[in-house]
């Protein structure tokens, strides 16, 4: 029984790994090879602080007018994402920017995914409650029919240090949780006091739990 627990865990892991292989073999896109063909703008002013769960961002995007004709022939979908600015990536390996888009963790929050249209599009996004406190910009990826990235646009420049805005996350705390924690803690400590008093009384009675063995 016991040995098979770990054996089945490692088997499960192997199955999960193997089933993920198709994703590796499809070949990954490098961000540095993507042409910047989309123009994206977002409503927040530079340095503005938005509250998660309350404030909205209006994103507009369109094909860059100077792009040669036929650039967007393969574009089928546009994905808009909320991305971390470099200042929010410092000392946080889970938000690291990597050129290989399959491993890149810069843009982990999806704003929306829309079918592609050449004309001006816009979308109003309520900042979700699971967005952490950080500094952001908005990026749009153009995807082809195979869901592979073929172009992008973003609200900031190449160095990602202009036109950034901030989000202030919810705390997740509630007064009811604080009260519950306090009550159970008091219960815990008072139980201990109760145990000691009970033990003192037991000691006074000299209560044997098994027949005494004479010394």
């Amino acid at each position: 029984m016991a040995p098979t627990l770990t054996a089945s865990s490692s088997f499960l892991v192997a199955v999960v790994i193997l089933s993920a292989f198709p994703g590796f073999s499809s070949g990954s896109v490098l961000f540095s090879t993507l042409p910047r063909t989309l123009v994206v703008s977002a409503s927040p002013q530079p340095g503005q602080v938005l509250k998660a769960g309350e404030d909205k961002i209006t994103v507009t995007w369109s094909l860059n007018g100077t792009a040669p004709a036929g650039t967007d022939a393969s574009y089928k979908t546009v994905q808009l994402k909320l991305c971390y600015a470099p200042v929010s990536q410092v000392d946080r390996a889970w938000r690291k920017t990597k050129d290989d888009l399959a491993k890149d963790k810069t843009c982990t929050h999806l704003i929306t995914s829309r079918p592609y249209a050449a004309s001006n599009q816009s979308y109003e996004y309520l900042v979700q409650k699971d967005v952490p406190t950080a500094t952001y910009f908005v990026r749009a990826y153009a995807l082809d029919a195979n869901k592979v990235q073929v172009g992008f646009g973003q609200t900031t420049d190449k160095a990602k240090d202009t036109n950034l805005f901030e989000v202030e996350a919810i705390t997740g705390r509630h007064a009811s949780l604080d009260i519950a924690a306090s009550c159970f803690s008091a219960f815990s400590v008072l139980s201990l006091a109760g145990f000691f008093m009970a033990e003192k009384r037991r000691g006074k009675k000299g209560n044997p739990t098994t027949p005494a063995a004479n010394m």
Partner: protein
Amino acid sequence: MGTIEDDPPVKFALPVDSDHKATVFRLFSFDKPHMRAFHLSWISFFSCFVSTFAAPPLIPIIRDNLNLTSTDVGNAGIASVSGAVFARLAMGTACDLFGPRLASSSLILLTAPAVLFFSAASSAASFLTLRFLIGFSLATFVSTQFWMSSMFSPSVVGTANGVAGGWGNLGGGFTQLIMPLIYAVIRDAGAVSFTAWRIAFFIPALFQIMTAYMVFFFAQDMPDGDFKSLKKRGEKPKDSLPSVLRGAMTNYRAWILALTYGYCFGVELTVDNVIAQYFYDRFNVNLHTAGLIAASFGMANLFSRPGGGILSDVVSRKFGMRGRLWTLWSVQTIGGVLCVLLGKVGSLSASITVMIAFSIFCQAACGLTFGVVPFVSRRSLGVVSGMTGGGGNVGAVVTQLLFFHGSKYSSETGITLMGIMIICCTLPILLIYFPQWGGMLWAPSAKNATEEDYYLSEWSVKEQENGYHKASLKFADNSRSERGKNSARATAPAQGESPLPL
């Protein structure tokens, strides 16, 4: 002064020795007092492990909620295992003086508030403080080992210690599976993610409080009763704290075991904290998979640590204490070699295989260590257990600081270096020597040293005149099995040797 009085026949569910300690270990029994104490002690220790390592699997959510950096997360990990360094020592002392039942239920009730207040954490500082405070609860390890050493005879003490310790450690693996599950259920029930993880922490906290109640009401300290009632009946004299402490601190064997335990258990704690991110970063598995692999490392404790304890007892039957020491050294050293290998293998499947082999040897070494600890001292058993246990945590802190903090070494280099350190720091076991039983490289003393000589040396003449040493005398007699079967001195001292002064 050397005789053992006959005890009147007392009814116990299991066969017992003259100390009323059980001589067999029946896993599926709940009979009081022995097996009941076993089950309650491992379950309460398990709950402490669940609480202490409840945060790691939820770190991806918590780090976003509290805006933590990698440094914050790493520091909190070190804090979670450093609190127990001194707590384990204090717990050992408390067990010697107040008994494991009160000592462990007190600690569990005092650390439960830290688990509850995780729901109110608001910053890196509060997160670190809470992980530090919860980590104190890992001192219940010491009360578990002390308790098993009080309830079980030398011939099965390795097994009892190993199973209780191993099944408690299981909590560290179990929590990696259960906390994400509890979080998902609460979130799917409608809570926002940043609130759901907070609510999730109430579950381990309440479980912890429940185990403290069970320990207090259903278990007792020793086969004959609780410390308090034993003291009242005059069977357990109140011991002096300075003497108990001095007895342990002046025994070099306790220091050696504290060091070597840092390189089996300390390594285990380190791996608990870093293995998920190692697999995630090196092999690009996703977080769920990394968590599953991390959990299987901890879950191996189900059989590997108990296996070490059982092996210690089995080896002791034929080879005595020398066998226990040789097996401990070999198993821990092999664990070190596997650790070096783990840092070197390049493929995911090889890595998982080596990790599982490494976990088995590393955890078995923990079980084997506590097959030796009960014999180092009888009077200061608690403090010796506490020193060894605390040494385990020191090993975890030192190893994480040296090899897994900041970006000096990659995870795989850190793991290889950790393996080399394991091999080096296990060598001192060669120096452990008991005059009555021998050591790895030396036979027992030619001067016919006995178990009584060793254990009675812990008591002064005045204390012996007052009869305080009687429990040690019984233990000395029961521990004669550590001579092994084939040794010429295997039978009782009377055969052809000079009679002992009475």
